[in-house]
């Protein structure tokens, strides 16, 4: 091949790449099994339908990077997966575009709380009561049973922190799931939660990482634990007889957001609309045990698979939406009090 031909080939190639680059959509997620499911359900089919190539990237939720991009007006991420606290904060601080729902879909189709000003829910995950069905003769049915050390002897796992733990204590004390944050916002409610925790303190084994509860449960160190439902479903798939009690579960979303000033806004909207369609969310939930954020996806999913998802109607019935605003306001003082309580 002569040099001029080579050059021509390179030039054509570059032109091609340039064109493709301009059209590429960069979608950033947290990686892992979650990303694999997203590639299958959203990235690849979206490319087929729209012709827009999706470049998948990963990050650890650090908002500093987003802030740097937005501040310097050099946004190279088009769509971003964020957790609820970061979504709320980033929305306040102006890091994300305010969404135009006419370009996404019908707000009423989403699970309550999924359609936010700056973000739209991708999936629902839940912190719920999990137990080892091989170790317990009778199945627990609520957080009240979690506190009943006579009927269910053995240690219990709880997350070492105020978040989730205080909500659980109140539910065990008879507070209805929908009133939990109302009670917890009063000093008397906080006292009540800690008093309830006092009763169980000798039997609690604390966990910090999401991988610990299924381990503790499988090894028999604890008989029940609060746990992230996805982790329990994974352990279940590996053949461990771990079960989830959905009554009193606390759910939250991971959401899509568009960093402010993204040059690819139209394609980003198209992608989010595509990923919010029930038929695509169905594929996602079949690949990982997180519930769809679009209610219309629920009837499409097989009943047996559905029973393991946080968004199944029977699982949502007595569940609590984690109140991000509450924790933004009271988090520091409650975590401090929790630390003081736990170290006594």
């Amino acid at each position: 091949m002569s040099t001029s031909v080579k050059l021509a080939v390179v030039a054509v190639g570059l032109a091609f790449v340039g064109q493709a680059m301009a059209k590429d959509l960069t979608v950033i997620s947290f990686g892992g099994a979650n990303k694999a499911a997203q590639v299958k359900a959203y990235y690849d089919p979206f490319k087929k339908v729209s012709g827009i190539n999706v470049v998948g990237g990963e990050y650890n939720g650090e908002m500093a990077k987003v802030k740097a991009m937005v501040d310097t007006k050099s946004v190279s991420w088009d769509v971003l997966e964020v957790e609820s606290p970061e979504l709320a904060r980033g929305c306040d601080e102006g890091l994300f575009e305010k969404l135009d729902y006419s370009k996404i879909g019908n707000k009423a189709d989403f699970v309550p709380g999924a359609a936010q000003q700056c973000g739209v829910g991708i999936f629902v995950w839940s912190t719920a009561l999990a137990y080892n069905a091989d170790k317990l003769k009778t199945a627990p049915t609520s957080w009240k049973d979690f506190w009943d050390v006579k009927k269910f002897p053995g240690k219990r796992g709880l997350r070492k922190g105020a978040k989730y733990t205080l909500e659980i204590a109140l539910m065990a004390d008879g507070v209805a799931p929908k009133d939990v944050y109302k009670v917890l916002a009063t000093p008397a409610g906080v006292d009540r939660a800690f008093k309830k925790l006092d009763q169980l303190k000798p039997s609690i084994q604390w966990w910090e990482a999401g991988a610990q509860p299924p381990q503790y449960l499988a090894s028999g160190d604890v008989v029940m634990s609060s746990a992230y439902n996805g982790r329990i479903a994974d352990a279940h798939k590996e053949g461990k007889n771990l079960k989830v009690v959905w009554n009193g579960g606390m759910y939250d979303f991971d959401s899509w957001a568009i960093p402010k000033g993204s040059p690819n806004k139209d394609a980003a909207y198209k992608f989010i609309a595509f990923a919010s369609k029930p038929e695509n969310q169905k594929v996602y939930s079949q690949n990982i045990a997180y519930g769809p954020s679009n209610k219309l996806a629920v009837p499409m999913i097989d009943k047996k698979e559905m029973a393991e998802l946080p968004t199944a109607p029977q699982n949502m019935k007595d569940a609590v939406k984690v109140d991000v605003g509450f924790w933004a306001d009271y988090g520091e003082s409650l975590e401090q009090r929790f630390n003081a309580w736990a170290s006594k």
Partner: protein
Amino acid sequence: MMASSAPMPDHPLTTQDGVPLKTKLARAERMNKLKSLALVLPLALFLLLTFVVPIGSLLLRSVDNPEVVASLPSTVKAIGAWDGKSLPPEPVYRAVAADLIKARDDQTLGDLGKRLNMEVAGYRSLLGKTARALPFDPAPASYKDALVKLDERWGDPAYWQAIRRNGSAHTPFYLLAAVDHRVDDLGDITATTPDQAIYLDVFARTFWMSAVVTVISLLLAYPLAYLLVSLPTRKSNLLMIMVLLPFWTSVLVRVAAWIVLLQSGGLINSALMALGITDHPLQLVFNRVGVYIAMVHILLPFMILPIYSVMKGISPTYLRAAVSLGSHPFGAFWKVYFPQTVAGVGAGCLLVFILSIGYYITPALLGSPNDQMVSYFVAFYTNTTINWGMATALGGLLLAATMVLYMVYSKLVGAGRLRLG
């Protein structure tokens, strides 16, 4: 100018060029000193740049308080005229509205909300809600009425006192919080409520646990060091390698190994149960016992090595002489041998104690919440809540406490008598 070669008795000694010998000597000494100083200068500079300056600037963060002053400048100015009891006057309300609009546009609202939320829970959402509603259109006759109508919390003096308290770029807030104290609404320093108090306990626990670890290490290390010195070289070398081998292994690996050994279904518990010593597994890990076992194991070489090196230098003849002069062997040991090892014991204890104070990973992995030491909370504030003011305040206090202890110690034992080997 004198040029005599023989010194006269009533004249000071001089050198050949007539300068008194004393001056000349001092000059030469000074030159030598300067030379040696020049030699250590690179090291001193290195220490200054990589040690003193970073630590110093980090410690300054514990009194740093830039958020309110930077984000609410006109409010801070206006609030000076307020008596601090009833509600502040109209200009303060007007100033806060203007400042919040600017803070929202500059995106400093997040930092401001985080800082004020530490003072009054709920401040963050109040600022967010207010900033979203601003600017008022049309401009109200009274910003006071408009803000209170928007959210009744603006009618509560506590929220204004929080701004007034933080009207300077420096604050004792973090340092006071690190010793369970705070400045109350009236500006007095008071103890925090019992349900929020934690750090005094944690400091006391840190020093107590370090002392226990030091004492156990000493009790184990002293006889072992003595054995090492008295054995023939070949055997003592072998033993020494066994002491040093774990020393070269990663701390994390050793901690993980202890979990495996000590857990309820672990090696030690199954052995005890097989031997019939207990009929149910003992709780050896995720409590204080587990932390002590692992910490002593990790820190033991730091106690053995200084004691060993000091013992190595003690001639056995002293002990023999004492015994041959009629002393009881134990008396001879206590009166003749032990005093000679004090320097090594002192160095070992200091080393182990100071290392223990900063322990983080071992209690974090092997202990329950009430076995955590100060470093755990430093890490908690650094990584989890990103509250660096609190992290540096705790770290700074720990550093100060360690320095005071070292001074007390060197007064008691004498720093000159420490020998690290």
